[in-house]
């Protein structure tokens, strides 16, 4: 008889084994898809691997691709630990990029040491405000945050479309491209490795990971975030202003998402356009979930997804595998990781049907 019992505690080793198995199973399922699409599995995977880890340059490129995902992943971790189910990482990232760009319009010839921090700050404020709007709607009018964040995602993305499709921000003579003019040099994030555009955003992301971890674990505010997620009523009975806590959580989550927008626009693309951002917020949700809502977990998941993203570019060039398989692969991995995170809490034993 197969017996399933709940474990009292789950060790790190069991977790790691479970996640590695999930990774293997996820790749196995993807192989099946590749095989069904008629391409060569081996060729596909070796191209993917080559693109992601094949050289020093490839690896650095993977880090560049991972950077925005670390931010949106952390944004997910902070909100979800408080059991605020925000889907607004995408919109907040757009809002961040747009606020940063807006600030840059007034920075003219300011030197980089002034311009970049101001842009980053403006972006964080923009993302935080959008997050706080949803937090306020939730605590003041009990508007479900899933609805408000999803809807505001559309509002923001279409607002950017308006601004870029012949609106005030459209680059002269490039209406059909839906993008702004190239950013001046002093607005660009300084590079750590210039060939591959590994910019300081990556260092900020690592710093943010450590900060988020420390805040959750060591500070009274982190204590409140966790308590808010576990039992807001008890928190209210002990005199904590729950509405204010929700506002701050959404502000932090929004500011983190905004940083993803800044890194992509001011660190990599050097002009504001929508399609380079699309999806990074939603992928951040997957990253946060796979990371077990732990900041370092999210960091690892983001690095994995960055590598996948980067490798997939290579794969689509070098093999016949349709690029659409990459998001499918991410989805498959998410399913396996989430299953693993649940299953690891149980002990499955097969034994003879007797306990006498």
């Amino acid at each position, binding site marked *: *008889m197969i*017996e399933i019992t709940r474990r*009292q505690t789950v060790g790190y080793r069991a977790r790691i084994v479970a996640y590695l198995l999930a990774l293997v199973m996820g790749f196995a399922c993807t192989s099946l898809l590749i095989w069904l699409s008629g391409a060569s599995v081996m060729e596909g995977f070796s191209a993917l691997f080559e693109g992601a880890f094949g050289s020093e340059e490839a690896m650095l490129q993977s880090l560049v691709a991972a950077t925005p995902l670390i931010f949106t992943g952390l944004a997910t971790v902070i909100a979800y630990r408080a059991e605020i189910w925000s889907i607004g990482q995408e919109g907040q990232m757009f809002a961040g990029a747009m606020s940063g760009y807006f600030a840059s319009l007034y920075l003219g010839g300011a030197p980089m040491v002034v311009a970049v921090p101001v842009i980053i700050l403006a972006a964080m404020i923009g993302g935080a405000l959008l997050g706080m709007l949803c937090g306020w709607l939730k605590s003041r009018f009990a508007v479900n945050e899933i609805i408000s964040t999803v809807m505001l995602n559309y509002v923001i993305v279409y607002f950017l479309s308006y601004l870029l499709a012949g609106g005030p921000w459209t680059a002269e003579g490039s209406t059909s491209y839906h993008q702004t003019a190239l950013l001046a040099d002093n607005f660009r994030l300084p590079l750590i490795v210039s060939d591959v555009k590994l910019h300081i955003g990556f260092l900020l992301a690592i710093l943010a990971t450590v900060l988020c971890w420390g805040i959750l674990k*060591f*500070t*009274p505010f982190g*204590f*409140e975030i*966790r*308590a808010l997620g*576990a*039992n807001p*009523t*008890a*928190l*209210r*009975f*002990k*005199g*904590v*202003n729950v509405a204010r806590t929700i506002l701050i959580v959404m502000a932090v989550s929004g500011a983190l998402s905004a940083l993803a927008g800044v890194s992509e626009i001011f660190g990599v693309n050097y002009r504001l356009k929508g399609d380079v951002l699309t999806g990074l917020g939603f992928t951040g949700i997957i990253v946060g979930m796979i990371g077990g809502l732990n900041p370092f977990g999210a960091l690892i998941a983001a690095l994995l997804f960055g590598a996948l993203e980067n490798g997939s570019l290579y794969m689509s060039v070098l093999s016949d595998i349709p690029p659409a398989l990459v998001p499918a692969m991410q989805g498959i991995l998410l399913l396996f990781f989430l299953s693993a995170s649940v299953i690891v809490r149980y002990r499955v034993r097969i034994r003879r*049907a*007797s*306990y*006498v």
Partner: protein
Amino acid sequence: MTSPTLEVTALCKSFGSVRANHDVTFSVDAGELLCLFGENGAGKSTLSACLTGLYRPDSGEIALEGTPLRLSSAADAIRHGIGLVHQHFVLVPDFTVLENIVVGSETGLFVDFASAEARLRQICESYGIDIDPNARVEDLSVGEQQWAELLKALYFDAKLLILDEPTATLDVEGSKKLFRIIDKLKADGVAIILITHFLEEVMQADRVAVLRQGAVVGIKKTAETSPEELTRMMVGRDLKRQTRQSTPMGTARLALESVTVEGLGERPDLDDISFCVHEGEIFGIAGVAGNGQRPLMEVIAGVRKPKSGIISLDDTVISSKGVHAIKSMGLGHIPEDRFAEGLVRDFSIEENLILGEHRGTFAKGGLLDFRKMAQNAKRLIAEFSIAAPSGETLVGNLSGGNAQRVILAREMQLASKVLLANQPTRGLDVGVIDYIHQCLFNKKAEGVAVVIASSELEDLIALCDRIGVLFQGRLMGIVDARKTNLEEIGLLMAGHALETAV
């Protein structure tokens, strides 16, 4: 001689290092009512879960009518004729009573609702249960849901019926009715196991098995024992019932003047309440559940705001202050629902003990002071005899009594002037109740004004100096606990004003 309906031999069940049941042996005959009696966490619920297939015992044997049984699921238990009435309801709110009973347990592809309904009506009639099979469960009162649970067990012709704390949600009339049904079931040859910690109910059984720390410490015929002996067996020591001490009362400490709190509907939750509690006084709040006890405690603690009226503590107006500010003035609040309002299940004992003080006493340089948290927990665990392996134990893993001790430990520290306790002993066994009463007396001796709401009127009369009775949000009267009796309070609770109120 025929085999007993149920025979349990040397049953053991552990969860990790916790031995929930150890070497449990007992039997129940057809037509017999056996009571399982024990403190919270003595292993009663685990035992019933083992008997109904929810848990698998680690070792030992369960035999039904002489045949060894290995139950793999609850449905399996039902097939073998073992019915369980849960302490916590397991009904689907959107379904009717009939659907709840039939769906998921009938075999075959289609359900014959018509015949099932006829059968259910017939059961209702023969046992005198007045419930409409087609009523939706969410429309039923808590008491009626309890009957629906019972119907579920009766529907399947149980040979053995296990009732887990069935009277917790019933009123006096309901309990009497339940015992009438039990008598009829006994006459029909059903073996019944009643799990309870109410002594009155225990004495109505044929035999009692007393559980302590997971083991059976004795099986007695009720005719040959006494409530005192059973209590001694359950707790493992003698209990002295606490009674009021005549500490002199000081000046007014907590005062409410014409306090009104708005309700959801037309009627206010609290309507023009005025009273004061003195230093060293225990003030009781009596009333049928839902007549304003909760809003009263919450408005004093600052969780809710009054629409009008003034609340003051030592001449300082607190009705305009927030929870945190009021608490800091020396007010402790033991809320009614310990897991929903008092504790965070997923937090450790350490963390729960600093809830509310996490930005004050237990923060240092913007970070949580983990060393202080650990010391605090260690001290309070010892002082309040919280049974837990360590301060890092999750509160969700504690029994009700120990969880309540965690709240008690936290709130007693705060309560230097006022202590509010809303149903502090509900669902707890006599050992813990005794302890909580002792804590209240200690506070009284320190000159704290104590306000306690309880549904146990006898406890209120024994504990309090004065008792205020609430009816539909109004204070019907305040009586002197030394001179009052159950009848007088009962009349006030039913909304009859008294002329002789003190």
